[in-house]
């Protein structure tokens, strides 16, 4: 098998010793000593509590941690939790650790997990982030059961988030996927995902794993690929998501570059699927009981956000001129000249900007990395506006506004198609 070439002999030997499994859970790690024990214990408890009769394995591809993360995974034992369980584990939970190519090789970790799923003939798989502070055993059930029992091909998560959390997902990624691919997925970039063994094999067969955009944000590629292949998608409510502090302080410029780069590249490689599509976006079934609870509020320097937006627009005008249409750029400059509380970055303009950036990325009007970097100041202006608008909004109003934004993306879809297909 081709995938065996990138798996170490030791890893294959361990997989062979396990035999076949029903459920596989993957946790890609890199220096996550602080949280990994909690994550592994939650996984093991979830497996024992909700799937006591199934053959299960935990795969941990590690990027070369030097803080003892793989050792922590190997040493954690379900026997430590006897008091928490009403029933004893009927089967052994196998834990296999292997290494992959470093911090930038997240795609390699995904590939290893899928190869393991293929070799072990797993029926259902789940992958969870190693830096979670809010994971509970129920997450495993929520991610695995729809695949294992309800025959879904892929399960994406739904988190309970603070209203200012996940801005990039809410303002670009989710609504673009909804409008372009016609499937309303709420969290297409959640670190947690469930999928069938069959789908893992299909992903593994694709000759894309060496591509930078797949390695950077494999989840976006997997979801868009699954939609384009007509797979059965569903969503599971997981509850609040809290990351370890060092994981949540991401660099906005790099995140936008990676996430949107992957999204636009996926759109490019799957244009045969979405360009001719005319149907309205379809909802995706949700499993689990959605509840709301208090989540930690987000604080930030609003003044600085506005200043960075205004400074960015004025400094980057020569770059923006080659990406945006003259009319859109004039509107952006008008928005940047506003000051104080009446500040508003309208949905209509924001959607137009995102679509023009997508088309310019497709036509490579300038270096693609530069193009994505140029979006950051505009994104800052947009989130500043969203924060001002949602200051006193409750979850219902937030949801309503999210819906309106999605509708705007759908409304302007012909504009994207027109820009995408026109000759540069």
């Amino acid at each position, binding site marked *: 098998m081709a995938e065996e070439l990138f798996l170490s002999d030791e890893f294959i030997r361990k997989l062979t010793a396990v035999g076949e499994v029903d459920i596989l859970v993957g946790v890609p790690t890199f220096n996550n000593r602080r949280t990994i024990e909690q994550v592994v214990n939650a996984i093991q408890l979830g497996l024992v509590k909700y799937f006591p009769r199934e053959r299960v394995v935990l795969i941990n591809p590690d990027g070369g941690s030097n803080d003892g993360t793989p050792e922590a995974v190997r040493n954690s034992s379900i026997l430590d939790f006897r008091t928490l369980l009403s029933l004893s584990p009927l089967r052994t939970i196998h834990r296999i650790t292997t290494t992959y190519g470093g911090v930038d090789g997240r795609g390699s970790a995904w590939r290893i997990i899928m190869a393991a799923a293929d070799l072990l003939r797993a029926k259902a798989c789940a992958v969870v982030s190693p830096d979670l502070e809010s994971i509970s055993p129920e997450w495993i059930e929520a991610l695995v059961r729809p695949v294992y029992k309800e025959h879904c091909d892929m399960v994406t998560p739904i988190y309970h988030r603070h209203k200012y959390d996940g801005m990039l997902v809410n303002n670009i990624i989710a609504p673009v996927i909804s409008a372009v691919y016609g499937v309303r997925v709420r969290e297409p970039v959640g670190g947690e995902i469930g999928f069938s063994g069959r789908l893992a094999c299909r992903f593994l067969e694709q000759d894309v794993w060496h591509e930078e955009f797949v390695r950077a944000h494999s989840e976006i590629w997997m979801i868009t690929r699954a939609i384009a292949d007509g797979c059965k998608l569903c969503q599971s409510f997981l509850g609040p998501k809290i990351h370890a502090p060092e994981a949540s302080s*991401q660099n*906005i410029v790099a995140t936008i570059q990676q996430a949107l780069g992957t999204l636009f590249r996926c759109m490019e490689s799957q244009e045969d699927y979405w360009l001719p599509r005319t149907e309205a976006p379809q909802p995706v079934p949700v499993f689990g009981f959605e509840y709301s609870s208090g989540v930690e509020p*987000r604080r930030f320097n609003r003044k*600085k956000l506005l200043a960075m937006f205004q*400074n960015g627009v004025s400094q980057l005008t*020569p770059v923006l001129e080659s990406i945006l249409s003259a009319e859109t750029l004039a509107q952006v400059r008008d928005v940047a000249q506003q000051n104080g509380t009446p500040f508003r970055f309208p949905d209509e303009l924001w959607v137009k900007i995102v679509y023009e950036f997508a088309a310019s990325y497709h036509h490579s009007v300038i*270096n693609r990395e530069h193009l994505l970097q140029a979006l950051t*100041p505009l994104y800052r202006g947009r989130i500043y506006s969203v924060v001002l608008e949602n200051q006193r909004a409750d979850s219902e109003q937030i949801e309503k506004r999210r819906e309106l934004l999605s509708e705007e993306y759908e409304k302007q879809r012909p504009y994207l198609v027109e820009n995408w297909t026109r000759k540069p």
Partner: protein
Amino acid sequence: MGQLILNTLSQTLGNFFSALTLFLPRVLSMVVVIVAGFLIALVLKLIVRRIFGIAGFRKYCDSAGLTQMMRKAALPPPVDLLGQLIFWVVWIVFIVLGVDALGIGALREQISRFFLFLPQIFVALVVLFIGLLIANFFSRATLLAAANANYPSARLLATLVRLLIIIFFVTMALEQIGLGRRVVLIAFSIAFGAVMMGTAIAFGLGGRDVARRFLERQFTDKEEPTEKDEEISPL
């Protein structure tokens, strides 16, 4: 005495007019050659553009990414550039021929030298083109990095980077055609120093948080909570 002056004047004027009658036709032929050269060059440019247009060269350049590369260097598309190049080469040849028609010995020598220089000039032009590409790329990269770091004079910084790189490549091009050999060394020293300084500033700006955390870990017992400016997690 007056007669002598008049004689000298008339002789001078006579000499001048005889020289002029000899020189004027040459000037006229020079103008004719240059104007004809301009028209021929113009026609050739249009023919080349037409031929390449029919042959689908424009499409080929688009698909090969050549058009994008030229656009990134703020240059016209390859077909237009080729047309311009042919226009200028042909016209310069005619200008040189026209100047040669003047029959000035010193100029003739320079012209023959110019033709010997042509291959070096071509290499110098290639060096300049590459320099322009690199300058534009790094200038834009600097502009974006500085603007995203909220640096107030991002454009000034980007212009400086562009200018430095262009100066460096212009000097290299001059070196190629054999001018200012010493200048190359000096310019390289200055440019290298500036690049090192720029890198140091870039590391300072980009990695200041890392450096601060590192220093805090080294010199304090406990990490002080630091004020976070941007806590909105994007994903």
